[in-house]
């Protein structure tokens, strides 16, 4: 009940942010210099074509009317019509949403699987050889452009020894997982670099707490002290690091989806920009921002479950 109330009140707080997102996405392409219809048609547009497109897009109407009809489109779940696909944008976005969500989700799972053992080990054996090696590896990994890793790792892992597919998106879910594994791993390296650092330092902080000494003095085995008392209490700050970073990950899918030919929202954004499909770009920017907002909301809820002291109000 309490949790439900918390969710509802958080959702209400989001309304102004969501409205703001639609305004920014709407204005983004209208404050640009030049006439959108002319830009979209490029050099092959005749004056008649430009006039027709201008009225089709409603660009001849006052700005507030255009915005209201944009909001109306969103409310109907359509986002208007795509110029390149000549179809309603909403259903196209839904179809593209799942590969992107799967990529973000899988990369987060991989990052967490790397983080937990490495952070615990390096926190307990800090300043050891493994600690230094892990730190150096992940600091370097953060500086690596994901698209570069995508281009290069294909050579040993997909061409020389064909463990992973070079690109594309499979048929059934196992095949899809196989196609997403390498790109998800590349994204996960950047995430893990942050979360390992964060979890390692909070574990070190918790290891110095009195209740850990108490647990040890009671004669609990070290394994159980670490798992039950240290680990759980170290998680909170890492969850918020993960949540803040998810926005970065979602943005990062734009490039990595293009590299691996995954039919998600990111590769659609790049294709739509190249095709000058402005209504599609507008719909995509709103979708990306809403994804970030929703994921932050989920992180808030996860936070309150892990740490009951966080008041649900």
């Amino acid at each position, binding site marked *: 009940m309490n949790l439900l109330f918390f969710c509802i009140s958080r959702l209400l707080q989001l309304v*102004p*942010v969501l409205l*703001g*997102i639609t*305004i*920014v996405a709407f204005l*983004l*392409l209208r404050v*640009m*210099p030049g006439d959108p219809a002319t*830009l979209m048609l490029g050099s092959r547009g005749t004056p008649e074509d430009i006039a027709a497109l201008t009225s089709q897009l409603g660009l001849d109407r006052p700005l507030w009317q255009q915005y209201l009809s944009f909001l109306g489109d969103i409310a109907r779940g359509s986002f208007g019509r795509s110029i390149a696909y000549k179809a309603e944008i909403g259903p196209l976005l839904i179809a593209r949403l799942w590969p992107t969500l799967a990529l973000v989700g899988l990369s987060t799972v991989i990052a967490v699987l790397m983080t937990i053992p490495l952070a615990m080990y390096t926190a307990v054996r800090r300043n050891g050889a493994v600690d230094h090696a892990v730190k150096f590896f992940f*600091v*370097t990994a*953060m*500086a*690596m*452009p*994901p*698209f*570069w890793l995508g*281009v*290069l790792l*294909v*050579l040993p892992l997909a*061409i020389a020894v064909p463990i992973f597919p070079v690109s594309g998106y499979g048929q059934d879910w196992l095949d899809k997982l196989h196609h997403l594994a390498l790109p998800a791993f590349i994204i996960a390296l950047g995430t893990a670099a942050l979360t390992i650092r964060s979890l390692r330092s909070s574990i070190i902080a918790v290891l110095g707490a009195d209740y850990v000494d108490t647990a040890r003095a009671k004669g609990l085995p070290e394994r159980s002290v670490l798992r039950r008392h240290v680990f759980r209490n170290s998680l909170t700050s890492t969850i918020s690091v993960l949540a803040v970073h998810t*926005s*970065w990950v*979602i*943005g*990062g899918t*734009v*490039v990595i989806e*293009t590299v691996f030919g995954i039919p998600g929202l990111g590769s659609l*954004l*790049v294709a739509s*920009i*190249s095709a000058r499909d*402005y209504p599609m*770009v507008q719909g*995509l*920017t709103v979708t*990306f*921002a*809403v994804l*970030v*907002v929703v994921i932050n909301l989920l992180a808030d809820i996860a936070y309150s479950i892990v740490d009951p002291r966080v008041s649900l109000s």
Partner: protein
Amino acid sequence: MKLLSQETVRRFKQNRNLQVGLFLLAVIVLTSLFGPSLVPYDPEELDFGNPLLAPTLQHPFGTDDLGRDVLARVVAAGQVDMQVVAVCVLLPFLIGSTIGLVSGYFGGWIDRVIMRFVDILWAFPFYVLVISIVGALGPSTTNIYLAFSLVVWISFARIVRGEVLLARRLEYTLAASVLGYSHARIMLRHILPNVITPAIVFMMADVVLTILGVTSLGFLGLGIQPPTPEWGVMIADGRNFIQDGWWISLFPGLAIVLVGLTFTLIGDGLDDLLRPKA
């Protein structure tokens, strides 16, 4: 505030991160300045007789599909990329810090409006906004500067504002306002020096994000346009020859990693130097 007190010098001598980082930065700057005159090849000169040569003493980084020397191109691209990154980091730093300073100092409705706007922009993933803006405006360095300025200032504004809110409560600020100093003088002379450190530390991390962003734009064909050598563009070029010429993509990427590593070390080092922990 004395910047180079004996204490600071002592702390610098123990600060391995900062020393290594500054050394690498010197290497990068010197290579960008003098490299082009030391490499005996023109980065844009085609040599169809020698395409896709593997790295040798003659061509330490090999040649690309058009016979251009990859080393010469990596060095020339370094000049381009480092200049673009410098502007793309400094502009948002100046804009964001100013807005954060004003917002935090005056508070009230100015602060509420600005911070609401920051919250909204915050929801858009960095790459999505930058790519959309540059894509809509068309690829040019000016548009890249514009896109990064419009997107990244919010990080600096948030950091500086938070620090200003703390500093405003402290006694030296109260003392300055009791003395009747103008708002501008209190902000610039009294508050700014005490709040700017975290923004400078973040600026170093922002260099890493920005070099990845700028080269990503180049890689996608939305950034700096060929034939100007650029690291991201080079990696994209090498993609088609990954089996016969892996060096075309490898070396520009290593250059990006070197820049990223350098500024990560400088950022960590500055953090230790300027923000003593207990």
